[in-house]
């Protein structure tokens, strides 16, 4: 038996026509619904050695975005985050950032990249003109160097130079009180390690001129064995040690130096110690390590900060990191700026962001400001204190003085030829 086709429209054609008709009529509705949503792109490091920091950035952003969406969104538009892994490679960060804007239709960028990746994303922002808020790169030159300045990029991150000024002044006061004259340094051998250590010793000597650096060690980044470094420092017999090792490097270093009882032989200043990623991982956290605050929920000692830290812990079953509060602050800034601009348009938000002060759990006085002239975050809580082996880990933090920071930062900028 053979089948013959009957003339006229077949069932399949009818269905296809109906489908096409439905799509045609539904398209404007779909488009309108899409326009109601605003996509924010975020390249960050979700794999490799610093994945924990990238993940904590994503967590903090999602925590804040949920709040903003619950309160009506960004100027009435529901936020949809598109977060992708850059593997910590600058070329991949640039590619992902371009893809987020060009393919995924993201209208704003949160740049969760560190170091070179942030400069790569900065160039994408320069090229595409999209509003970009850097949320993780602490390199001072990103905003201090006028060559980097573009009207559509902001930095919502603590800065190396701010930390060095506060650390130098704090360490000098201890050095004077305890007569610590012989100092050693031990920092990772790359730009961050060398720059931060150089700036710290600069301000240490400025506030305590009779300090002398008797030993310098530059272990490689991600070095597994610190025995030679520890013994070299012990042989130099310094009275105090400064280190800007961070993350896994810092915890490995402390665990290995503990074997030599290093921490009972000298005062140790480790700027990156007071971060839960380090505090909770060290096996036997020595008492009395001096550290700058990265993120701890007890500094600033306000109910808002404690509540934020607890909310994060409740949601993700771990404490936030330094990257977390910075990313959360960036979302707070965007939300507040969009409210003031009454728009989610990047250009309008950028105009409002300049010089904007918002209430924030991480502010030194309960507020933080996006400084207008160099588009960078100031007024955040910054200070130093000493560790204890259990919570709250750093019970008392001596807050840095922002007036001094501003004065010395202006001098530093001048010395670098930035102003």
């Amino acid at each position: 038996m053979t089948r013959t086709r009957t003339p006229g429209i077949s069932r399949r054609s009818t269905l296809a026509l109906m489908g096409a008709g439905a799509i045609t009529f539904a398209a404007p509705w779909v488009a309108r619904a899409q326009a109601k949503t605003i996509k924010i792109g975020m390249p960050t490091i979700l794999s490799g050695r610093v994945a924990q920091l990238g993940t904590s950035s994503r967590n903090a952003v999602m925590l804040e975005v949920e709040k903003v969406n619950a309160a009506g969104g960004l100027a009435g538009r529901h936020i949809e985050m598109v977060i992708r892994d850059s593997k910590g490679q600058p070329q991949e960060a640039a590619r992902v950032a371009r893809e987020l804007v060009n393919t995924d239709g993201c209208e704003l960028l949160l740049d969760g990249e560190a170091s070179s990746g942030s400069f790569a994303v900065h160039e994408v922002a320069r090229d595409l003109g999209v509003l970009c808020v850097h949320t993780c790169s602490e390199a001072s030159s990103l905003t201090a160097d006028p060559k980097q300045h573009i009207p559509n990029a902001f930095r919502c991150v603590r800065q190396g130079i701010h930390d060095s000024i506060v650390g130098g002044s704090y360490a000098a006061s201890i050095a004077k009180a305890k007569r610590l004259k012989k100092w050693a340094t031990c920092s990772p051998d790359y730009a961050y390690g060398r720059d931060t250590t150089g700036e710290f010793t600069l301000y240490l000597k400025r506030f305590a001129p009779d300090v002398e650096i008797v030993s310098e060690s530059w272990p490689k980044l991600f070095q597994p064995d610190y025995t030679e470094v520890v013994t070299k420092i012990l042989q130099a017999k310094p009275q105090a040690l400064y280190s800007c090792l961070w993350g896994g490097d810092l915890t490995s270093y402390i665990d290995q130096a503990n074997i030599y009882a290093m921490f009972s032989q000298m005062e140790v200043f480790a700027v990156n110690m007071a971060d839960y990623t380090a505090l909770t991982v060290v096996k036997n956290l020595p008492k009395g390590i001096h550290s700058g605050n990265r993120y701890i929920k007890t500094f600033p000692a306000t109910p808002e900060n404690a509540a934020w830290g607890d909310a994060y812990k409740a949601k993700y079953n771990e404490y936030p990191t330094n990257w977390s509060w910075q990313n959360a602050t960036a979302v707070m800034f965007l939300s507040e700026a969009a409210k003031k601009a009454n728009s989610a348009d990047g250009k309008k938000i950028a105009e409002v962001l300049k010089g904007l002060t918002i209430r924030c759990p991480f502010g030194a006085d309960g507020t933080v400001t996006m400084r207008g002239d160099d588009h960078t975050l100031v007024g955040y809580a910054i200070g130093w204190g000493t560790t204890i082996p259990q919570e709250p880990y750093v019970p008392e933090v001596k807050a840095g003085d922002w007036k001094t920071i501003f004065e010395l930062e202006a001098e530093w900028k001048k010395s670098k030829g930035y102003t």
Partner: protein
Amino acid sequence: MTELEAGRAETLAPVRSGAVLRRYRDVLIALIALAVLASLPLFTGSKALLDFVIRCSAYGLFATSLNLLVGYTGLTSFGHGMFFGLGAYSFGLIMQKLGVPIPVAFVATLAITAIVSAIIGAICVRLKEIYFAFVTLAFQMLIHSTILSWASFTGGDQGLRGGIPRPPFLGIDLANHVHLYVASCALLILGLLAMRQIAQSPFGYTLRMIRDNAARASFLGIDVWRAKLTVFVLAALFASMGGMVMALFVSGAYPEFAYWTISGEGIFINMLGGVSTFLGPMVGTVLLLLLNDTVTRFTEYHGIVLGVVILFFALGLRKGLLDFAAEWFAQRRDAGEGR
């Protein structure tokens, strides 16, 4: 001409004309490919697609140049990425510090690469197999460490910041996305064509002979060291071109461009695409970038996915995709002829 020589000339003539025809065929294919790629922006407004092709150009030039060493000469370099990084940094630094026109910077970068690769190559190509691989890797780490340490010149681990200036020349404005796209395509096609000519030339066949039996080549009067050094420098030049395209794409240069992982990606691409066909690395490049771009959209566990894919190629196919396809077609043809 003796009778015997005349007889030989008669038999050689069709071979020569075949070679000439093949050469023209290659040029024709290149022109068509360039025309198709260059006209792509007329049909699509997708910037992502253009970005993809620009990145394919950078990695394609790099991977194919690596195949000149690995596939054609049997020199497995673990440090070829150093020339990718060198190209990106030299070009970026010349543009930032000297502000010369782009073609001048392009030629100067190639000259720098030629000098550096000749010095490194002169030391490396004396070695064989694993020793060659590891000494090239050592030189790569030396260049990478120099970039990191010489922070006042190279920007250290933060890379060349502030963007690479791209002043227009001859009506070409590389700050314009479409212009950059067409220029990248042109560089890719010209580079591939040049590498194809090298591979198909008597020199290319000398390289194959060295790969198969260097001692025999030497006994036939070939200066093996000189031939290896020449191809080492030539491959470095094309890798450097790839680096320049990448520097223009990201408007900067970063130490990661000169890190061993870039060399690893080059080897990975060659394994994916195959080393016994000329276009194998190009196919590998497209595959790897497609895989990377799609997998990273959905998961941060891309390492696992890429690992499974490479295992599939290494253990399943036991060769690159294009090698596998070429073999399959050859078997089918043979089977057809046999019938």
